[in-house]
């Protein structure tokens, strides 16, 4: 379990990062908190020729309120986010989700941006971003762009990020007063990736349900959202049969996951009620 050898560069500016990434193309990998990448390197499941360390980039830090949205820098550590007053106030869904990510030691290093960029299908933050209708700020060789969460998660570990792209920040619209949030997941041990999880929000008019651990990306359950917006929980639970088709994994069958997804929806429904 030793990584293949690689080069390493610690970039001092975003521009330098973009140049380094452009030069090495698919041979380069960004390293942020390293909590997912380092195990992949050690198991030789990833073997980039060069690691581009972005930890010195001040541009990627900080949590701020900008216009109508909360901006969380990619390099904000998960533990730092957990203690953030702004996040607790303006993105309570994320505040609810953070303690479920691994263990404290992991959250001390793991970053918000790293979690979104990796897009593990069972991860909490991608589902939160999706449920909240957030956006992702990206800087690449061709300049900056913003991608909506609904368009960001493409497939298993596949996102709108290209090889030369740096995730700069995520943006969460500041919620209306009547917005309610619900978060829950089922993991066999404290800190494990979830067998099934649900990040949800709802106001008077609409609901957004983002399930995780039940597909190759976090998934919106749009039929269930519509049913829930109409106020029918039982119908929402029933139509999950059509929204979700979880594949089997080593720990449980798709059928079990679907059952768990339904249970989660029932359980957080009271939190979503006005």
């Amino acid at each position, binding site marked *: *379990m030793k990584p293949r*050898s690689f080069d390493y560069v610690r970039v001092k500016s975003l521009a330098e990062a973009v140049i380094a990434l452009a030069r090495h193309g698919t041979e380069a990998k960004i390293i942020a908190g390293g909590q997912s990448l380092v195990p992949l390197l050690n198991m030789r499941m990833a073997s980039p020729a060069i690691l581009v360390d972005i930890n010195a980039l001040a541009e990627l830090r900080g949590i701020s309120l900008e216009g109508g949205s909360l901006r969380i820098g990619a390099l904000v550590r998960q533990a730092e986010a957990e203690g953030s007053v702004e996040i607790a106030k303006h993105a309570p869904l994320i505040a609810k989700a953070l303690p479920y990510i691994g263990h404290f030691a992991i959250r001390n290093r793991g970053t918000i941006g790293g979690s979104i960029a990796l897009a593990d299908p069972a991860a909490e933050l991608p589902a939160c971003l999706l449920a909240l209708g957030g956006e992702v700020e990206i800087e690449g060789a061709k300049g900056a762009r913003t991608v909506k969460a609904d368009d960001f998660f493409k497939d298993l570990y596949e996102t709108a990020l290209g090889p030369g792209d740096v995730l700069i920040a995520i943006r969460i619209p500041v919620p209306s007063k009547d917005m309610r949030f619900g978060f829950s997941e089922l993991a*066999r041990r*404290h800190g494990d*990736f979830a067998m099934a999880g649900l990040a949800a929000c709802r106001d008077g008019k609409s609901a957004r349900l983002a399930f995780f651990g039940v597909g190759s990306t976090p998934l919106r359950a749009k039929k269930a959202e519509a049913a829930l917006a109409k106020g029918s929980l039982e119908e929402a639970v029933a139509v999950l049969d059509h929204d979700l088709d979880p594949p089997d994994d*080593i*720990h449980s069958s798709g059928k*079990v996951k679907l059952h768990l997804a339904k249970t989660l929806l029932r359980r957080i429904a009271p939190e979503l009620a006005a």
Partner: protein
Amino acid sequence: MKIADDLPSALTALDRPNSYIGRSVPRPNLARLMQGRGQYVSDLALARMAHVAFARSPHAHARIKKIDAAAAKKTPGVIAVVTGPELAKVITPWVGVLSHLKGIKSAPQHAIAIDRACWQGEAVCAVVAKSRAEAEDAIDLLDIDYEELPVVTDAETALDAKTLVIHPELGDNLTFERKHEAGEVDKAFKEADAVVEATFVFGRHTGVTNEPRAIVAYWNEGEQRLTVYQGTQAPHMMQNLFAKHLSLAEHQVRVVTKDVGGSFGIKVHTYADEMATVALSKLLKRPVKFVADRLESFITDIHARDHRVKAKIGVKKDGTITAFEIDDLTGIGPYSVYPRTSGIEANQVVNLVGGPYKCPNYRALARVVFQNKNVMCQYRAVGHPIATAVTEGLVELAAAKIGIDPLEMRRKNLIPDDGYPCAGASGIKFEKLSHHAALEKLVKMMGYEKLRAEQAELRKKKIYRGLGFASFIEVTNPSAAFYGVGGAKISAQDGATLRLDAQGALIVHSGVTEQGQGTEAVLAQVAASAFGIAIERVRVVTGDTDNTPYGGGTWASRAAGIGGEAAWQAGKALRQNVLAVAASILQSEPKALDIRNGLVVDADTGRERITLDEVARVAYFRPDTLPPGFQAELVATRHYVPRAWPFAFTNGIQASYLEVDIDTGFVKLLRHWCVEDCGTVINPQLVDEQIRGGIVQGIGAALYEHCIYDERGQLLNGNMADYLVPMAGEMPDMEIGHVVSPTADSELGAKGAGEAGTAGAPAVVMNAINDALRPLGAKIITEMPATPGVVLKALGRV
């Protein structure tokens, strides 16, 4: 019978002034280990040391057609690339059989596969390089041409005529079979008012040690000697095996075992990659290091359990058990593991089923079969969790069927506490057990009636809690009956050498080993008590075949009971020797003197006569002042092996209180109790923590741990993310109690306690889940681990 507490034992032979027996003395190695100053083999570096990594078969069964090492040999840092046939010139293969397991068979296993790999993970080629990373780089460049062969993975069909025979020369895939019949089984089932049958399935799992297997081998060409630093439970056994298979004399081999980061039975076997490391050192004439990484640990550390047991119990209306019957099938991988064999666990299952009960009618069949999966062998509590879950699962199912309280059912059937000595239906012999006393103590500790009332109350609120129990027996302190009689050179006896140093401190050398469980603390306590010195002045040395008495090491819960007794006897002997010197100096009689708290005193009055360091000073530096013809002997060695009984059986009972979330299938463990009788408790804290740790491993089996294989023999979850070890967050509070029935075979009276927790925990968790779900009409759960999916299925929810 007496409940142990943190007080000196009341047993007269042990009741010496300043006795440490029965006291929670902190371990002498605690500060060193807590400060990160352990000496683990993983951290060891020697001059000119090379590192080996192995190319491992990605297939469960494949012919190795060609290994092209040209590119690998050219990579930086590479010292040698060695294949199976090349290494076979240095080391001979082995066969894991024992003559007392009648009919057991296996095929020769090589340090590196010769022309065929028989499980995913078997080493097929070694690369030795200046660093482990460079060795791994070279492995990437090996071009190995495999021809995939059909696989045998399902134990259930391994013996079918149309199934491939893994080792054609053996004729079939049957490793070992044992049948046992006692009493009148058919008649007893006929006379039963109810017969309950169930099939129990125990998943394969493994013992995940903190420190993986680690070995540094150094063949010194000048000395013609091999020194092996190894994290092992049995240094003398390994000395014998290294010598035998490298064609050396045993005195040419030294095995050194300093700190070991946990063993649990994983480190008491012969591993092909470790044998290869030793052979490579001989071949290359330099130190070679191998440390298993986590990924290879999962595919090469022995796996455990993997049993399917069809079982049956007969009961009368009044709760009397009339008969037990089992049919056990277990798959053990392609080789019986050397030298202890992979037949022992099934053999134990046959020995232990029904063990706590009076019932004389018992029929058992156990079959052990080969398959193309990682090897399986003895892991903490060998066979006990299987036998206990089957027996106690049946007892609780039968109790439910005839409508009797599960504890009443046990009160009716457990061997009475005054019924010893006696034998069990499988032929095992009991000196003195305390099932009833343990049960009554447990009932009191847990507040049984109150919990039952709470359970009933909560059910009305749709909260489903369950209580499960398991009475059990544990094999400890084995005599030569375990391995020696079967021809394995595994010492059943153990020795201790005690020496008074020149300042009157006590140096203890013992043949048993420290795996992190506190052996050295126990040895220090026993030696200090027997000799009569403060424990701060005792130093314990273990784990060095050049410097410790010959012994078996740590396994089968033997270190305290056997190694402890040897230290006790040696302590007494050295006391006599020292008193002889003191008497000679004081012109007194040894009989009139004693050693207490590090001083030679008048035996009658306790008045100080001379200090130990003065005795040592005279004996070592001024022997000329001693009477002519008197020779001081300040070293004493004693050995001990249990002779009166093949094994010192212990007993105990556990209980689990848990809650099942019937919508998710999740199980929340609330509380856990264990009352256990290991005879004399030398160190209550160490015993309790052994039991707690053992319970955690048993809970792992019941709920979490599982080596999941696909039908092609691929391990699907061989990493720490997907293989779920039990973690502190999910563990319940565990209350431990003791009943004390010392063995009369030794003066110390200590039996083992290392496996009791693991023996009973899976059974109680399973029983408690079934108890919780009973009012819901759920199907009985007899499968481990009981995952949320298993529970939901039993509830008919998925």
